[in-house]
């Protein structure tokens, strides 16, 4: 297969060895080359991916989503909610209004959760950075696992009949007619919206990417080969749960964590453990829990976090065994 990222490697090589004149045999060269290559590739893929998803997103409004999913039960609607979650924005500040909007439209609680689990877990920015660093295969595994996790996690929550753990006021709120939809935009307006999406997200995450790539680059160049295989390899069964627990407090920095994880994989961290860590960073975050606490009782939050964390740990073991 032709490596479409070859030009970036070429630029990185030119810059490192010729312009900066660093001896290719050194740790410094390995680090600098890694940093330049990763930064170019990440920003390229970030822009392309965010543009594409932002464009698609102009067709999938929350109003439309809740109309489609209202009153629908069954596994395939969980899958649909989970898929819609992948192209929905990942700002946790909208979780509560979305949650109430869904419940009000008669979307079953479990289907709503399928959406809520996948929405932050599979987002275009994380997918772009994953693709740029870990390659297509690992990214595909991450995305498919995320969709399955949202589908089944929400399905399980639906089976447990937890409606009583939703705060009562949620059922009383009436959602008004939405005034500003993006359903009738022209191609030009959609393109503009997509460009704005790129500007907004890249403007927000670039600093994390640079920091993450730099840390990853230093680790890549200087850490001993196989150091992680020795301590956090596949035979260390505790590695996956520990990775998941470590991921929880790192919520907002997933763009920075991915390049670091890339370098950890290079030193022998198994792929299942790595993906479990990243899923935990994106899917379970304290600020989101605090926001959701306004509409969910503690019991439901605990069940939600337990189901998601357990599924992520399972996914980690699964891919450590399979790959």
């Amino acid at each position, binding site marked *: 297969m032709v490596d479409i990222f070859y030009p970036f490697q070429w630029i990185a090589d030119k810059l490192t060895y010729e312009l900066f004149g660093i001896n290719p045999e050194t740790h410094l060269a390995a680090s600098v080359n890694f940093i330049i290559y990763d930064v170019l590739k990440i920003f390229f893929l970030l822009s392309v991916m965010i543009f594409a998803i932002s464009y698609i997103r102009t067709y999938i409004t*929350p*109003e439309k989503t*809740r109309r489609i999913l209202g009153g629908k039960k069954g596994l395939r609607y969980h899958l649909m909610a989970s898929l819609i979650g992948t192209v929905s*924005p990942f*700002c946790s*500040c*909208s979780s*509560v*209004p*979305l949650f*109430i*909007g869904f419940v*009000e439209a008669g979307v079953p609680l479990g289907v709503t959760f399928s959406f809520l689990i996948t929405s932050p877990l599979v987002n275009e920015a994380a997918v772009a950075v994953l693709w740029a660093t870990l390659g297509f295969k690992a990214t595909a595994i991450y995305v498919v696992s995320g969709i399955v996790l949202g589908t089944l996690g929400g399905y399980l929550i639906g089976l447990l009949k937890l409606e009583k753990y939703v705060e009562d*006021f949620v059922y009383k*709120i*009436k*959602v*008004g*007619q*939405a*005034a*500003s939809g993006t359903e009738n935009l022209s191609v030009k307006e959609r393109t503009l919206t997509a460009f*704005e999406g790129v500007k*907004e997200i890249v403007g927000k995450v670039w600093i994390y990417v640079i920091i993450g790539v730099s840390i990853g680059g230093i680790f890549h160049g200087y850490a001993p080969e196989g150091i992680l295989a020795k301590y956090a390899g596949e035979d260390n069964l505790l590695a996956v749960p520990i990775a998941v627990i470590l991921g929880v407090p790192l919520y907002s920095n997933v763009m920075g964590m991915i390049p670091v994880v890339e370098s950890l994989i290079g030193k022998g961290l198994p792929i299942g453990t790595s993906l479990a860590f990243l899923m935990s960073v994106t899917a379970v975050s304290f600020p989101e829990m605090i*926001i959701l606490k*306004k*509409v969910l009782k503690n019991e439901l939050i605990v069940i939600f976090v337990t189901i998601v964390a357990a599924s992520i740990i399972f996914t980690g073991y699964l891919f450590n065994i399979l790959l």
Partner: protein
Amino acid sequence: MIIEILGTGCAKCKKTKGNIEKVLKENGKEAEVVKVEDFETILNYGVMVTPAVVVDGEVKIAGKVPDEKEIRKWIA
């Protein structure tokens, strides 16, 4: 004119407020700018993605920070 900014205190809502106040000042317009953080009011407007801006009871934008050009249109 009453301009309501709907959102629960995330960074984007602050930016929205900043943009609106800037445009108002530049154009010498007076308006009452209010932040609305109560979910019931937000949803009563039919807004599910924040930040959103409501001018005199009409939802102008939802789910993104308005740029200065958009704001100028609303206050004209």
